[in-house]
């Protein structure tokens, strides 16, 4: 009954965490006074949202703006034509001032529609947290159920705070420079790189603590959507490091991911940073393209998890004296399957929502592609396992579905439904081989398959974009080929099979770089943390299960023989 009594043994790390949070708080106060420095800079933020969305936001179905702006580049061959169009627009506007007023309303409504879409899909992505919690909790042993739930819960809480403090500013502090989210009103106040400038930006520099320039309706819409994406990377690691990591070490991992690891690479791809601009600066396709984050979110999370799992080492008893892996069967298949379905549902926000606008009608294709890859991935994993081991493993069938989802996340907007099925099937096979490879050859213990699902399949998804993108979508993506691309008007992001090898090269290089970045940075940082204090629980705690030693309660208290203490209610006597 030793575990029923209070044991105080986790005081060491928690003091360090408290100190770190105190520093964050002080930084916030400092930052609050600092943002006055940005206060007089144009453009002004619009916290009320009353100045966001006017006639300049009105576009037709093909994306042509309603308002014709005065051409500024006199050396352009189209100058005369553009100037004529501008003059005609001016003359027309002078005759019909009411049309301009109406356009102001239409523009505002357009932004409003896109806000609704982006926020609602963001809420769907938020719900994926519940799916991950169910999935990972079901895949581990019962004695660690409370530990798993708390990791998933704390991941949301602490990574969110880190992202609020510095992460968002690092990632999107310069988004208006190259990657303005015009569907959401452009977030024009976020226009400064902390490191780098122009097409070679490495780190955003505005919007710390969401104050000043980031206290803006357009920016906050983006914040909500992006913070839940960061959370996804944040809880991917849970699947690989659970059942042996101490809680304080886990909190440091989350602060690291939410504040540093994810935002930095996120800035390179989505914040208008250098990787996304390789198309303009080095003529490599449309630059590095990752629509909804196969690499930015998933492989970064997956390879970070790999480094952490490597540092922590396998769970006790995972490998026998002969080095052969042993099975620790899942404790709750019902959780595993329902969690996977919650994730599939959440993914309907993850991918279609990444258009950041309901006025982008490609959303239907994206939703279909996402689902197709999911079922194809699951079918492939199920059948492969059936063939290899004689029975289809339910947990691998679920991993296969997630593998398909992870892989289609980058290319979902740029490929056809048929290509989505192919991508899903390859991912479904890849995830199975990845799980066996990790377990038997690398001997990295990954209880939930996070490294294979998110790391390997995420990398593959980003590369698959460079192969299968068919050019039907993404005209002018990352500022490349707005007028014409590969000699065709309206040609979008194009992959190897449709004639643009340079897109494949930048995808392969970019995805590999992000994987190495995530693995390398995490490994260096946490090797140091682990040398300072062991991130792993003691042998006794691990054998007993982490629930009681780390949190003072069991996930399933009915499993313990409860002793009624003196103060508790004893059963009523029958009279």
């Amino acid at each position, binding site marked *: 009954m030793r575990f029923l009594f209070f044991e105080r043994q986790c005081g060491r790390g928690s003091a360090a965490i408290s100190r770190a949070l105190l520093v964050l708080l002080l930084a916030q106060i400092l930052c609050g006074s600092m943002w006055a420095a940005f206060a007089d800079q144009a453009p002004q933020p619009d916290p009320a949202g009353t100045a966001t969305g006017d006639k300049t936001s009105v576009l037709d179905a093909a994306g042509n703006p309603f308002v014709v702006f005065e051409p500024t580049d006199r050396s352009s061959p189209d100058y005369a034509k553009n100037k004529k169009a501008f003059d005609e627009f001016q003359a027309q506007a002078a005759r019909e001032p009411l049309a301009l007023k109406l356009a102001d309303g239409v523009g505002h409504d357009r932004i409003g529609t896109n806000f609704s879409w982006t926020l609602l899909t963001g809420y769907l992505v938020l719900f994926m947290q519940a799916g991950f919690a169910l999935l990972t909790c079901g895949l581990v042993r019962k004695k660690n159920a409370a530990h798993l739930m708390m990791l998933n819960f704390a991941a949301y809480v602490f990574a969110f705070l880190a992202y609020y403090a510095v992460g968002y500013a690092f990632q999107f502090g310069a988004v208006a420079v190259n990657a303005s989210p015009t569907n959401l009103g452009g977030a024009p106040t976020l226009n400064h790189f902390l490191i780098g400038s122009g097409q070679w930006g490495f780190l955003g520099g505005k919007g710390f603590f969401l104050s000043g320039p980031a206290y803006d309706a357009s920016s906050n819409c983006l914040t909500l959507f992006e913070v839940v994406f960061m959370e996804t990377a944040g809880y991917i690691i849970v699947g690989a490091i659970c059942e042996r990591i101490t809680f304080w070490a886990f909190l440091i991992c989350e602060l690291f991911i939410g504040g540093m690891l994810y935002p930095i690479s996120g800035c390179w791809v989505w914040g208008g940073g250098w990787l996304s601009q390789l198309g303009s600066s080095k003529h490599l396709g449309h630059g590095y393209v990752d629509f909804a984050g196969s690499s930015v979110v998933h492989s970064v999370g997956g390879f970070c998890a790999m480094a952490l799992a490597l540092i922590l080492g396998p769970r006790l008893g995972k490998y026998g004296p002969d080095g*052969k*892996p*042993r*099975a*620790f*069967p*899942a404790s709750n298949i019902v959780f595993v399957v329902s969690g996977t379905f919650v994730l599939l549902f959440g993914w309907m926000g993850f991918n279609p929502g990444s258009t950041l606008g309901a006025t982008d009608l490609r959303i239907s294709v994206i939703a279909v592609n996402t689902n197709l890859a999911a079922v194809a991935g699951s079918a492939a994993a199920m059948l492969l396992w059936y063939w*290899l*081991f*004689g*029975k289809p*493993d339910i*947990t*691998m069938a679920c991993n296969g579905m997630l593998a398909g989802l992870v892989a289609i996340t980058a290319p979902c907007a740029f490929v056809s439904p048929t290509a989505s099925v192919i991508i899903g099937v390859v991912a479904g096979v890849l995830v199975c081989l990845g*799980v*066996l490879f990790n*377990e*038997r050859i690398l001997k990295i213990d990954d209880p939930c*398959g996070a490294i294979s699902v998110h790391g390997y399949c995420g990398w593959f998804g980003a590369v698959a974009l460079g192969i299968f993108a068919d050019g039907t979508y993404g005209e002018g993506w990352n500022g490349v080929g707005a007028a014409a691309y590969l000699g065709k008007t309206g040609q979008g992001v194009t992959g190897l099979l449709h004639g643009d090898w340079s897109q494949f090269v930048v995808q392969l290089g970019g995805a590999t770089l992000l994987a190495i970045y995530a693995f390398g940075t995490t490994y260096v940082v946490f090797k140091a943390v682990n040398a300072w204090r062991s991130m792993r629980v003691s042998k006794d705690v691990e054998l007993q299960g982490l629930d009681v030693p780390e949190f003072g309660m069991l996930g399933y208290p009915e499993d313990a023989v409860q002793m009624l203490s003196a103060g508790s209610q004893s059963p009523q006597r029958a009279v």
Partner: protein
Amino acid sequence: MKRIDAVIRPSQLDEVKQRVNALGITGLTVSEVRGFGRQKGHTETYRGSEYTVDFLPKIFVTIAVAEDLVDPVVEAIIEGARTGVIGDGKIFVSSLDDVIRIRTGERGPGAI
């Protein structure tokens, strides 16, 4: 007085209960247990790693009876629990020194 303990297949509990009840016994206690006999365990695969299921789930039935009911109850358990396949279980019969009804303090055969 005798105590009859039977290890049976979980699927046969209902059959056994009905047959034993029909004999007019006044009490029966069951517990879920795990174990192995000649049936032994079997091997399964989880995410590519093999594991053995050594201890199979069984139901442990305990009945206290007067001497004259021992043979009919044993017969009833056999009838209810037998499937003819290895793993049907075992019955243990042992003598019982005393039985006490907690509510009244009654002792002996009357307390059964």
